């Protein structure tokens, strides 16, 4: 217990791959082993990786849908309140509130809040913004936004065992496996 490194808590094992096919086959093996706290990091979305990882369909759509719905009815309610309830403006004998004349604005409000719902919903589901991450300290991992592919199995996965997991990752064909600390 001389060096500070001895006190570090392991974050997980990181395995590097050179090709999308390589990382995808590795992901299939890790999925079949039953790991739950693990991830694949790629420079671009790899087609078919969600299946290879066993991920379910993303839930972002619910955020979009409910925000859009609120936008539409919020828009209608706003116009009714402003032009018919709070201060009626009679124009040419037309009704003070009509869903037809109000539609364009309510439609734009649907899209506006649906768009905010999609972006903020995506960020919420991804727990972003996160301005610190153990992997972002690792220089080798910096190539994840360039041309390298990584499988990371976290140390707090119930099936994690440093030796066994390292063996598994080696079997998947990774050339570089490294322990990343918190």
């Amino acid at each position, binding site marked *: 217990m001389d060096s500070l490194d001895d006190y570090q808590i392991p974050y997980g094992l990181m395995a590097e791959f050179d090709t*999308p096919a390589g990382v995808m086959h590795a*992901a299939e093996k890790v999925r079949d082993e039953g790991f739950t706290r693990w991830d694949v990091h790629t420079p671009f979305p790899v087609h078919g990786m969600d299946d290879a990882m066993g991920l379910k369909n*993303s839930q972002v759509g619910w955020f979009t849908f409910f925000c859009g719905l609120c936008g539409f009815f919020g828009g209608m309610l706003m116009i009714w309140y402003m032009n018919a309830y709070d201060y009626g403006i009679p124009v040419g004998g037309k009704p003070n509130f009509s869903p037809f004349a*109000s539609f*364009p*604005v309510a439609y*734009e409000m649907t899209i506006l809040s649906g768009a*905010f719902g999609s972006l903020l919903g995506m960020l919420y589901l991804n727990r972003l913004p996160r301005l610190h991450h153990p992997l972002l300290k690792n220089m080798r991992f910096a190539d994840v936004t360039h*041309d390298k592919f990584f499988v990371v199995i976290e140390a707090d996965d119930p099936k994690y065992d440093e030796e066994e997991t390292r063996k598994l990752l080696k079997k998947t064909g990774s050339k570089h496996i490294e322990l990343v600390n918190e």
Partner: protein
Amino acid sequence: MAHDAVPSSVKIAPPPVELERPALVANNHSIGWISDTVAGVIEDKTPGWWKLAISLSLLVSLGLPIGLIYLISTGVGVWGLNHPVAWGWAIVNFVWWIGIGHAGTLISAILFLLRQKWRTSINRASEAMTIFAVMCAGIFPAVHVGRIWFDWWLFPVPNANSIWPQFRSPLLWDVFAVSTYFTVSVLFWYMGLIPDLATMRDRFRKVAGKVTEPAARLRNKLAQFLYGAFSLGWTGSNRHWSNYEKAYLLLAGLSTPLVLSVHSIVSFDFAVSQLPGWHTTIFPPYFVAGAVFGGFAMVMTLMIPLVSLYRLNEIVTIRHLEVMSKVILVTGSIVGYAYAMEFFIAYYGGNPYELYAFKNRAFGDMNWSYWWMISCNVLAPQFFWFKWCRTTPWFIWLICGFVNIGMWMERFVIVVTSLHNDFIPGNWGYYSPTWVDMITYFGTFGFFMTLFLLFCRFLPLIAISEVKGVTPQADPHHPLGGAKH
């Protein structure tokens, strides 16, 4: 298993050579080459032409504050507006700029839904163009009201007499349409930037140790901090990509009806009135087609010089230019059809005022604008039937210049010629812009170009992660992506 049932004697031939498409990124470069090339634009020394261009743009953009301060301090009388032409260059410029924006959203949203992979090379710059064009557009309706200190009456807040805005007016719909369009375009653009900002963050991080000079170290630190903060801690996690791609698809799905509605609502500003020449049901689709047409021309006007100056022609290839030329040909022909149909309905509808308005457009005392419009919008794009014309950058650039002029003329024809000779001869007049109209309009060019040049210098002008994603090297089932069989 179905494919086991096929006897081995049956050979499935590969598609014929002439049906094979050239790769989207030429010369089979590695995926790392793509980030090196695009990020190289930011990392390299500022090119001389860029300094020259931004100085020129800043100089031209001075027209904007000069024109606006003079206008606001004096009154709308400094413009060429008169009776009966109460809408002049301001509205023409507004519709023209906002139309240009539409190509960016078409490329980023509609072509995404249609799975047009070539869009990845141009979508980032086009979306930037959209945002800056909408900023230029927004200036004009805000200042054309005369007493601009009452602009806040457009917002849904009660005025001093507790009266709310009146939501039955297309002009108010326009406020919501344009502000929604701007906001959603910014959200979409920013979301697309997140992975690429992370690329920039990591690139500056990788070289940080090698930087020794104090000024360069400070620059590196600042770049790491800013790209890092705006990339929100992106790690390329597939769990993140999964949500990200879904959100991207949903934003594309939301932007598509949005972009169609924005120019439809802009056209309602005219079509809902009862003026001959404006009161037509063809306006919404005709405006949208015209917007896409003019916008694609502006995309090419910007991209062709940019690609050759930054030597990005392996990412934005001749094939990209050819496809965009075809879009221009199609939308130009739709616009031509709309011009013909308007004329036919003016004749067939049996309304003498309507017929007069159209005859006056083509043969009246402002006929020059009409024939400029026809030549630039209907005739010029017809060159794109020929392959040489679609694959020669300087020629495409020339035609796109004409289209930009033609689309401005189209809005001039719609706005001014419909107003200047209306129902009774006592209401007839002519319209000429003043120098204030002109420097304000040219000022917006400077403003637009300044923003666009800053964007090219400091942000990845090509969507790095998206371009990587459409190469065969990125396909896990392709031999270049590492597939073994």
